[in-house]
């Protein structure tokens, strides 16, 4: 079955630390992958997406993610986090039927 997994449930970092959140997917065929962010009290927003081409994709607010086919991974990275990055981050993949399946999410807390 197609699935997306995020292994980090809660990550706590200090400001200026580097961030890497893990995401693995388990399906073949065409791979369309996404990262969404949900800031406290706000709705889900798209951070970045991959569907073909350069495996290193850049998104908003300095985030980037790298698609590594051999590892079935699409990890999210940011070189230096800010307090305002405190949020919940969701990885998602598109099923063959066209709808998205989401991981369970990773809460990021950044200490000022």
């Amino acid at each position: 079955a197609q699935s997306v997994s995020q292994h980090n449930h809660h990550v706590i970092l200090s400001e200026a630390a580097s961030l890497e959140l893990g995401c693995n997917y388990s399906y073949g065929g065409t791979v369309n992958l996404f990262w969404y962010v949900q800031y406290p009290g706000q709705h889900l927003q798209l951070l970045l997406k991959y569907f073909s081409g350069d495996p290193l994709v850049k998104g908003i607010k300095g985030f980037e993610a790298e698609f590594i086919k051999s590892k079935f991974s699409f990890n999210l990275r940011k070189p230096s986090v800010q307090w305002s990055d405190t949020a919940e981050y969701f990885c998602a993949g598109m099923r063959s039927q066209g709808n998205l399946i989401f991981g369970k999410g990773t809460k990021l807390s950044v200490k000022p």
Partner: protein
Amino acid sequence: GAGVSQSPSNKVTEKGKDVELRCDPISGHTALYWYRQRLGQGLEFLIYFQGNSAPDKSGLPSDRFSAERTGESVSTLTIQRTQQEDSAVYLCASTEWVGANYGYTFGSGTRLTVV
């Protein structure tokens, strides 16, 4: 409209009552999706519509849940005989067509609390 609109934003209901949740997608978006987010859980897919038809109802948790969409616009998610485990945030999203790979636009959700 400019974004995906959901109503009500909050709903408290007694166990056993029926509830209706409404989603108004972006104008012109033919694909509409419903998800559920329970506390501490990820987003759980419920159902999607392409136009007025729902090709995949496999995510609906039980036969107490149903959804419809009319006129390729508004969709209603109905939960009959609500149970406490139905408490969650119900999210709606839309895209121009199913499989559009630029990502969903989500609404702000309806927070349902069953007491």
